[in-house]
């Protein structure tokens, strides 16, 4: 996935701040959506069906930035979160990073600082999204298939697997084909890549 296609979401109650930020980011060819409150954002955005990057103000009427972040975490969202606040302090920043925020900025912020951070956050979101998708695919495997998958990516050949699991070679081959189909892999290399994605530490 091209990282520039990863949408940027802005949540800030100050309209001119929102519009100005949007103007700046569109200058850097980002795809930008903006929302006046956390509630509006959560209601209108699919938070884990695709990658995304959220620029979040902290003090707002309704849900605060921190509350929005907490909600995203509890939903297991793949969206990256960057705080952009008018009155941030160190405890607030530390807490944000502990909760998995990608970055923390004070207003006003320069494009020179914000844009690289956004790009990094987009990549992170893509990775998170991929891992999330991989996990979803992996969960579609049966218990036996999961066991078999672990042995395949460990580099064992079919014969060894059949011996270890006390099943016939033919059965191993059937299972293996099913796994390849379910995980949309064409060859063993794809399977290893999938395994890497699954094991990525983000």
């Amino acid at each position: 996935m091209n990282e520039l296609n990863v949408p940027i979401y802005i949540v800030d109650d100050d309209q001119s701040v929102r519009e100005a930020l949007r103007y700046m980011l569109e200058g850097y060819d980002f795809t930008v959506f903006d929302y006046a409150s956390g509630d509006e954002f959560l209601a209108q955005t699919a938070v884990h069906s695709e990658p995304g990057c959220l620029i979040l103000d902290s003090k707002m009427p309704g849900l605060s930035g921190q509350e929005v972040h907490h909600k995203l975490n509890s939903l297991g969202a793949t969206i990256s979160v960057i705080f952009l606040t008018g009155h941030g302090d160190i405890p607030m920043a530390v807490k944000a990073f502990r909760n998995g925020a990608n970055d923390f900025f004070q207003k006003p912020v320069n494009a020179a600082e914000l844009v690289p951070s956004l790009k990094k956050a987009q990549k992170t979101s893509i990775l998170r999204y991929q891992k999330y998708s991989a996990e979803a695919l992996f969960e579609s495997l049966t218990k036996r298939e999961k066991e078999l998958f672990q042995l395949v990516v460990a580099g064992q050949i079919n014969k060894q697997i059949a011996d270890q699991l006390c099943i016939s070679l033919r059965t191993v081959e059937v299972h293996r084909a099913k796994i390849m189909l379910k995980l949309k892999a064409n060859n063993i290399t794809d399977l290893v890549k999938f395994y890497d994605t699954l094991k990525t530490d983000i």
Partner: protein
Amino acid sequence: MLLRLLFFVFLLLLSLTALADKHEIKVGVLAFRGTEKAMQRWQATFDYLSQTIPGTQFNILPMSLSELDNAVINQSIDFVITNPGQYVRIGSKYGMSWLATLKSHRHKQRKLVIGSALVVRADSTYNDLNDLKGEHLGAVDPLAFGGFQVFWGEMAKQGRNPKRFFSRVDFSHYPVDALIYWVRDNMVKGAIVPACLLEKMHGEGLINIRNYRVLNIQHHPGFNCLSSSQLYPNWSFAKLRDTPPLLAEKIAKVLLSMNADSKPAIAAGAMGWTAPVSTYEIHQLYKRLNIHPWQQAWWQEAWRWIIVHWPWGLLILFIILIGFLHHLWVQVLVNRRTHELELANSELQQQQQQLEHAQRIAILGELSSDLAHELNQPLAAINSYADGATIRLRKEQDNQNFISLFEKISAEAQRSAKIIQRIRGFARKEDPQKQLVQLDQLIDETLALLQFELKKSEIKFEHVSTEKINIVIDPIGIQQVLINLIRNSMESLSQRGGTRIIQLKTQILDHNFIQISLIDNGSGMEKSMQDKLFQPFVSSKQQGLGLGLSICKRIVENHQGQIWSDTTFSTGCKISFTLSGRHNE
């Protein structure tokens, strides 16, 4: 022809010498019942005098009171026949002297024969002087003796004053007969007339005496008329200061030797003349009425007293001088103290203003982080716009519409400027100046200063105003009051969950006053706090100085208003204040 002419000239000369021989003597006579009656009464007397005293020609000049007064003052007559009242009133000042007093015929030689009668209609309900209290009365003249002053003397004995006792006293002047007709025609309820007038008019067939009654009758043995007063001496014949004494002597002799049954005596209604009687009672009367002719102005009396008792006078003058000097000294002290007080007052005023200013700065200090955030927003926007524009220029996208961009940047810069303006306006240090403001606008400006704090605390602010109010006030001062009150409410709301509401109500009380009330649904306050709410250095906050509300009270009082807390409000607080200076279009 020539002879006839000579004869005529001779006759003329003769008559001239005859006139020259006959010395003309003018006698002023008080014509209290009119000229005609006066002539009838006295003609015979003066014909008799003219005949008896050789070389004299007596002329009667009937006069009114004031005419006679003037004639005496100007010495334009030689003799006077008048009542003893006028004699004392004017004669004692201008050197008149009695020659003889008339002997009364009607009262058989009684010496005291002049009095007053209070006359009412016989069919009226009045039985006593008291019945006439507050009524409309008639009298002859303020200077008339029998026709007013004598009766006034009677009332004065009872401590009454005719001017206050009656609702109104009208004066008929001469002839006095008119007064009886006034009573008859009900033009007045009663009349003060000379005693014997009724009897005389009855005798002359002018009236029927049974149609009238005299009130407060005093009985005097031998006096044959009805009188409401004590009696005074009869009329007298008097000479003026410059009248030759020899002539006066001759006249006195003639008068005193006049027979009771002589023609002149009968015409005058008298039994001849007697030696002049005492005027003592009349002096007493005038003293009682405080109108004695010898009575001097108080300062003349005082001066005479001082001349006579000069050591005492000196002492009194000295005391007065000391008193005056003391007064001056006290005045100097008062002025000095007043000045000191004014100085202290203006100093206090200045300190109060400094305190108010200091509190405003303190408020701004507390708001500073919020205000910084406020300012940060437009700056952030400007920054973003600039960065956005930079990248577009770098990419040489010359189709970009930079005009709208710069408009946006400018709007954001103006927004920052407005915030700074508001802060500076509130922090301004100058004497309170009242000016015409639109109240809603002032409230909006005030809320703008607190906007972020309100938003942060998630407080819903409702501004309820039914009418547009224009008012002449000190805007900074009132802003300070509003900010203090709103921030107090915010403080009490901070401990509350759920919906936090502050409501501000403005209403018109009358053509001058308006009322502003601030209501919150916060934690309210303790009863003990409410009583001393507006005292300085009383605070429920741990870090509070307790100056906010006492400053509010002072500012409100400078607008002739009052500030109070409604204790009846159970949940939350309600604080209201009034302001004068409403401007009516």
